[in-house]
């Protein structure tokens, strides 16, 4: 069964800041949902039997590229912080 440490770990993995008070509530909700979906875990089937569906290439040809920079302004308009045509982020290294 999931415990409070699992909730903390999941929040970290999912990059979501949660408050102390919310952890207990999330734990209760997650337990309820997992309890419901556990009926799937309980079905005894060999999932190795699964046949792959028909495989087809869904990627389009990378042809006729648009001119570089034509969408830059439009796309950057939604970024919270930009500088000289780039998205601005905090220092990574």
């Amino acid at each position, binding site marked *: 069964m999931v415990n409070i440490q699992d909730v903390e770990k999941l929040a970290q993995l999912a990059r979501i800041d949660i408050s102390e008070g919310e952890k207990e509530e999330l734990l209760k909700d997650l337990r*309820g*949902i997992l309890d419901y979906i556990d009926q799937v875990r309980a079905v005894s089937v060999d*999932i190795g039997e699964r046949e792959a569906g028909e495989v087809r290439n869904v990627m389009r040809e990378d042809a006729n590229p648009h001119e570089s920079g034509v969408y830059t302004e439009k796309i950057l308009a939604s970024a919270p912080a930009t500088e000289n045509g780039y998205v601005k982020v905090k220092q990574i290294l």
Partner: protein
Amino acid sequence: MINLKDITISKARISLDSKEFSARELAQAYLDVIKEKNTEINAYLEVFGDVLEQADNADKMISEGKIFPLTGIPFAFKDNILIEGRHASAGSKILENYVASYDATVIKLLKDQGAVFLGRTNMDEFAMGSSTQTSAYGITKNPVDITRVPGGSSGGSAAAVASGMTLVALGTETCGSVRQPASFCGLVGLKPTYGALSRYGLMAMGNSLDQPAPFTKTVIDSEIIFKTLSEYDLMDSTSMPENMRVVDNKKPKKIGVPRSFLNQGGVDTEVLANFEQSLEKLKNIGYEIVDIDLPILEYSLAVYYIIMPAEVSTNLSRFDGIRYGYSADGKDLMEVYMKSRGQGFGKEVRRRIMLGTYILSHGYYDAYYNKAVFLRDKITKDIDEAFKNVDLIATPTTPTTAFKIGEKMDDPVAMYLSDIFSAPANLSGCPSIAIPSGISSDGLPLSFQFVAPRLCEDFLFDIGKKFETM
């Protein structure tokens, strides 16, 4: 004075083309209703400022003889469908100030026809919910009974049509998000075949399940919208190529009822009684009704609640406070992510992202996700097998009528169960339609649902038109 109560796309088409009224007058009539009703219902998050200009453009098209089925027809759109230059928030604080940089394909097709866009409608945050109570912009009320929810997640679009604040609306379906609110508000809701309508420009929730889906007052209006929007789109890798779109022209005759699925409990007795009456009426007009055995369907909703959160946790990783939307300041990049997502996402979205993260984590992936994918294949195969014997599968659309505002908010599983009859169609990619089937003793709409084989929307339209008049 335009009679908005009985208007349909087909009737509006005749009146617009014969200049009985103009697209401008029609749009103005809806703007008047919006002004009167939206404060109470909260169906629209935004009414566009250029509605009358759009209508003038439609009138110009009509005068020039450039007439398409949807020229001058007023539409409302769920807030997760992108329209270039307009806000699209998906009912979330994290996208409060987001402006779309391109048109969704369904939007482009409607613009080409000269449809009139009235505004964007409220929804559960990122389409996660069944009652339009998880929106960051307040709840939407059911126009039939304002103490009740309109259903969800496309509750704003449903309420807008049901209250006469638009003629038709688009929502999106991942698991019943159009059929369930259509049921609660007394409308026709169509979930198309997966891959029939383009998903390009829809904010993804569960990519393997999502479809744009219309709300209308009649089956024929649903058919008109479907036929306008159903075409191959190069921009959607799961759009069905034209050569795969082989349509079966036969007329449906035989309806299968998955009894064990209906009898698993939790279904309101009045809903069941209404369903049986509808079956009886169908029999009286010449349809053959048979019981079918599909025990696998009982796993549908649980399978859905594994596959969907897995896709949600992956999809919503793009909302990081960097590329678009709400951004909280932090001392380093990790803190920007954590705070932006923590403050920007509401409770249900956080819950589903964490659930998906758990399901996809090492050690649980096989037990949950791979098992669910296996069962999804089995559900699809068993449904396909059933369609060798019957033309349609029938169930009630929802296990209950519209519930009270505030109800089920503390119990996620109880909320999820309101979509129990929706899951099989989304998991298998089959089309499905919800059609009003009467009024309950407390005055609430009841609804009947048909599921057809993939690409057999025509079966749904054919029987649906007869169902409406029986």
